[in-house]
């Protein structure tokens, strides 16, 4: 493990003078300068053809993820937890969360195939059928939710049996 007393002490050293612009660790600055130089060298080539579109994709990927995709699934998750909380079974949210996360993950990664938007190209390029991806994804999703529901029922039943009758 690398010990970097320089960074910590540099920050602490300057923490007293709050009005001055702080520089930070010189080691960190050097490292970042090095990183930016290499990124610039490759970036010039990356942006050589259609700089605007490529930059849009590069920055857009981060923005779409951080400001659209992530808030969406966080909100969906909150809603699920709240709904189960209202039913008095907050921990039960896991039984929806897990299959939904897995199914959503498969949809996210294989969206072009599942949505059928590349089906024609897939058939003409590779000679393979592009149909059936949506059906298989739905089938997997059904198995995931079905398995989760079965598990929930089994857990609830064993919990009911374990409880002594007097407790009712």
């Amino acid at each position: 493990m690398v010990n970097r007393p320089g960074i910590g002490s540099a920050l602490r050293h300057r923490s007293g003078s709050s009005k001055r612009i702080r520089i930070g660790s010189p080691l960190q600055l050097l490292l970042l300068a090095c990183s930016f130089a290499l990124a610039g060298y490759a970036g010039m080539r990356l942006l050589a053809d259609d700089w605007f579109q490529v930059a849009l994709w590069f920055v857009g990927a981060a923005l779409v993820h951080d400001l659209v995709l992530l808030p969406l699934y966080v909100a969906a998750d909150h809603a699920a937890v709240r709904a189960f909380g209202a039913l008095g079974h907050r921990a039960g949210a896991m039984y929806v969360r897990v299959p939904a996360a897995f199914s959503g993950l498969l949809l996210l990664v294989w969206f072009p195939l599942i949505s059928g938007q590349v089906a024609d190209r897939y058939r003409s390029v590779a000679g393979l059928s592009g149909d059936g991806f949506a059906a298989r994804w739905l089938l997997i999703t059904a198995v995931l939710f079905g398995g989760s529901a079965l598990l929930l029922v089994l857990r609830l039943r064993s919990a009911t049996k374990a409880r002594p009758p007097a407790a009712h």
Partner: protein
Amino acid sequence: MARSTSFPVRWRSPLRGPWFTSALGVVLLAGITVLFVTGLLSYAAYNPDLSPVNDKTPDKGLLGFYLFSWPTGPYWLYRLTQGVHVTLGITLVPVLLAKLWSVVPRLFQLPPARSVAHALERISLLLLVGGALFEFTTGVLNVQLDYVFPGSFYPLHFYGAWVFFAAFVAHAVLKVPAALRNLRGLREDEGLPRERAGQLRAPHPDPPTVSRRGALWLVGGGALLLFGTSAGRSFDGPLRRTAVLTPHGGADPGSGPGGFQINKTAAYVGVTARETSGEAWRLVVTGRTGIVRLSRAELLALDLHSSALPIACVEGWSTSDQWWRGVRLRDVAQLVGYDADTAPDVLVESLQSHGAFRRAALRTNQVRDARSLLALEVNGEPLTLDHGYPARVIVPGAPGVLNTKWVARMTFGEL
């Protein structure tokens, strides 16, 4: 507590914290390093410095510093390196998403920068996050033939990888010591100083619905699910059937000798049965002693040899070994005046009217290898049109696109 008030109140998951982020970070450190190395190897496997026709990023400059002559052994080399590259990339998607989720509150932290170095680090994080998502997105789209990205896949994915890697190395150097300390020194954040944990941990967390360990299992389960539905497409037969959502997964395209995966069909690249017929097709071989024209029947009359070799595609799928039969490339070179041991490079041209690799160059070590064939048959039968009839190249260890189908011309000599 200044930092607590700077922490956006809407991020209330009790899972976030240094232990969770560190665990995911260490997995990505190892995984992305493997992705980067296998990606660089894939570029080297094309032998881009051999001929401009093999190089889709000719402006690479110093970024091609490491290139070397791609070997022909082990014969499954590219099948392994590229299978690992693509399958591991797909598998790491949930780990990347979870890692980004675990640190997202820091995107909104106030003040935006504590120092010049910190400001630069945050700009570097844009290259890191944008680069990671750009690389994963272009890769995942490309294997599904969804060419919506702006430009050719090769330069975007190659130069994008270097931009990303520059930021990745800086991030790793700055964070790995702390990550290892977090993982070693504490279990699920017990005993971590409040001010350090507070950077990631929600100040007023909701009550937990799952433990951090449980959340890691969820991430691991997602990775396992993607792996389980993808990895099988590196093998023929029952294993391929397990790759149910992945391109070139599922059932084999047929049951006969030619019933294995096709990268590009004849129809797609504009090759017709008429131009490959016995009357129309001639192989034109050029070399030191001039030009030789051969019909398929004349090729079949030459010394034929067999090789069991796979097809391995840059898209990450591959076939099991197929039994190819044809004329050794070094024997073809002999027809135009070269000894088998001194056979030079060769430029191979296909009948296909379009496609990025309708011309491809092979290096001397590939030409001289006794397993490299101009194949005429596969699995005991003549090649099918989609597998390159009348004749195709098959070279051990090389990417599929260098195994030119529907060969029309072979030009031996210094390229």
